[in-house]
């Protein structure tokens, strides 16, 4: 127990003192603040009405700038990657790993301490950013988030942390599997680019191949194409987080798959309660959680079975 605590605090101090953390933190803070300022000037902001103004600040894109949500799903993986890609092989390259494992601590406290420290740093960072945006909302719009908004923001915060922990455990996994830090960094970034950017294109191509859409396609054909595409995209945690935040931050969203106009008939467009919104994205939350656990589990086992010479 003392081992994991010592490693946790040492790693925290290392992250906060490192230059790369400073760089990624300033990029994300700047991007988030500018997206919030952009959203204030946007027309769409008031589309949900006054009741959910703070939430729409998070999900609205203003003019040329993408929304805060967009930045979260695209940039936060980098936080996890930057803190995790050299967790194990970096120590090995410096020659300190063999020193660590010869101390009277359980071996898993090394990987657990590192994971928890990086997660705690990300948690502090995201909480800080959300607080900053709340500050922007209070000073520029004169709006204090209400209780429901706070609860929804907390759910969103929790989902973001799950998302970051997925990327963090993946980066740690690469740092266990590859001996060189440059290899593990490249592998992590490659996977990030694929899962965050390319998966949309790849899903589109496969869906078009399996259910081609032409001018003569029936409604069913188009729906089938769309459904395949969404199923494929759900393999990416980035898409999962987008779906989760869409439903959580916008109480009007009640279903995430495409719907025909007939099915919407008779629907009363009232906002959902928090628990109902949660029901909409519960599967996505569970999958995101499972992905993180599986990824961390593999890196844990790989690290425990690794023989550490010098």
């Amino acid at each position, binding site marked *: 127990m003392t081992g994991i605590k*010592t490693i946790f605090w040492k790693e925290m101090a290392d992250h906060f003192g490192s230059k790369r953390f400073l760089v990624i933190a300033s990029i994300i803070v700047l991007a988030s603040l500018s997206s919030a300022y952009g959203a204030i000037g946007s027309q769409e902001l008031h589309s949900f009405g006054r009741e959910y103004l703070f939430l729409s600040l998070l999900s609205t894109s203003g003019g040329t700038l993408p929304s805060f949500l967009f930045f979260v799903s695209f940039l936060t993986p980098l936080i996890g990657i930057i803190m995790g890609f050299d967790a194990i092989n970096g120590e090995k390259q410096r*020659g300190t790993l063999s020193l660590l494992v*010869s*101390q*009277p601590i*359980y071996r898993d406290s090394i990987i657990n301490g590192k994971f928890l420290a990086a997660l705690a740093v990300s948690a502090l960072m995201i909480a800080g950013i959300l607080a900053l945006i709340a500050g922007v909302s209070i000073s520029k719009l004169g709006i204090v988030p209400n209780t429901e908004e706070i609860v929804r923001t907390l759910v969103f915060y929790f989902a973001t942390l799950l998302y970051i922990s997925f990327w963090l455990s993946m980066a740690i996994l690469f740092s266990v599997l590859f001996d060189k830090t440059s290899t593990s960094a490249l592998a992590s970034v490659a996977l990030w680019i694929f899962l965050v950017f390319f998966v949309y294109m790849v899903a589109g191509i496969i869906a078009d191949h399996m259910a081609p859409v032409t001018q003569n396609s029936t409604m069913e054909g188009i729906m089938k194409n769309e459904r395949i595409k969404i199923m494929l995209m759900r393999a990416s945690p980035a898409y999962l987080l987008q779906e989760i935040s869409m439903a959580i931050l916008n109480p009007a969203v009640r279903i995430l798959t495409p719907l025909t106009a007939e099915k919407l008939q008779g629907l009363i467009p009232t906002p959902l309660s928090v628990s109902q919104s949660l029901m909409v994205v519960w599967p996505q939350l569970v999958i995101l959680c499972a992905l993180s656990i599986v990824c961390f589990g593999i890196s844990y086992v790989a690290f425990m079975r690794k*023989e550490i010479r*010098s």
Partner: protein
Amino acid sequence: MELAVQTIELTKKYGSFTAVDKVSLSIRKGEVFGLLGPNGAGKTTTILMLLGLTEPTSGEVSVLGYNPVKEPISVKRVVGYLPENVDFYEDLTAGENLFYMAGLNGIPVEGRDKKISQVLEMVGLLNSQNALVGTFSKGMRQRLGIAAVLLKDPKLVILDEPTNGIDPEGIEKILSLIRSLAKDLNVTFLLCSHMLYQVQRVCDRVGIMYRSSLVASGTVEEVGKTILGEKKGIIKFRPEKGVGLRQEALNGLDGLSEVRPLGGHFVAHFEEDKLALIMRGLLDRGFVPFEVGGKDYSLEEIYLRYFQGV
């Protein structure tokens, strides 16, 4: 004599390759034991098994009464291990590095600073406590490593290649440090090295590993006897000034054999226990002995002779 380390037919296989083959080693409490052998002989693997850092394929190990396979933490609590090519966090000072190590060893925060100064004093680095390890020479890092090992008040210290890549002055410091620590603290030392001359100077007993097996162990003399056989001393003597080189004059002198003239003098083997008689006899007969080579075995000789023979 109580044993600090005992292994019985310890074996480690990696696939079809046998890294350590039936090694039965015993190290007595309080002695400095040198485990010698060329690179790749299985020394480090043996050490890893002593510490529970890798599991033996078969055989038994006991370190200070603990079984490293079942109780690695208990072993690591009393055994200080300094791995080969070990290094410290370069962006931390010597003191901070030791503070971290002390934390991992569960030394309470209150007593840490005192303990750290104490061990730094022992290795002669007290003046560099607040210097960054990045500025340290290799020899200083190695001494810092010994300091880190001493933090936990170890009963057994294992040093893997402690003199690798260090300049002669640094080596001198480390060797005398080992000698004095072994004497003052009554700690058992296990040195692992391929640098024979150095090890010979500090070790009470040695074990020689070659191609995965322990081929001999005991004092340097005992090992010499097993490997080189009984060795005879060599004596050189010359006639007194003005007297010719006459071998007949030696008739009746017991204990000399294989006398042959060499340049202006004679070279002969002698029997160790008759040395005084031989000396007197030589002087009486008008010869002056000028060089008596004892039958000290040098590890270098043992090494060369043995490994050429195999």
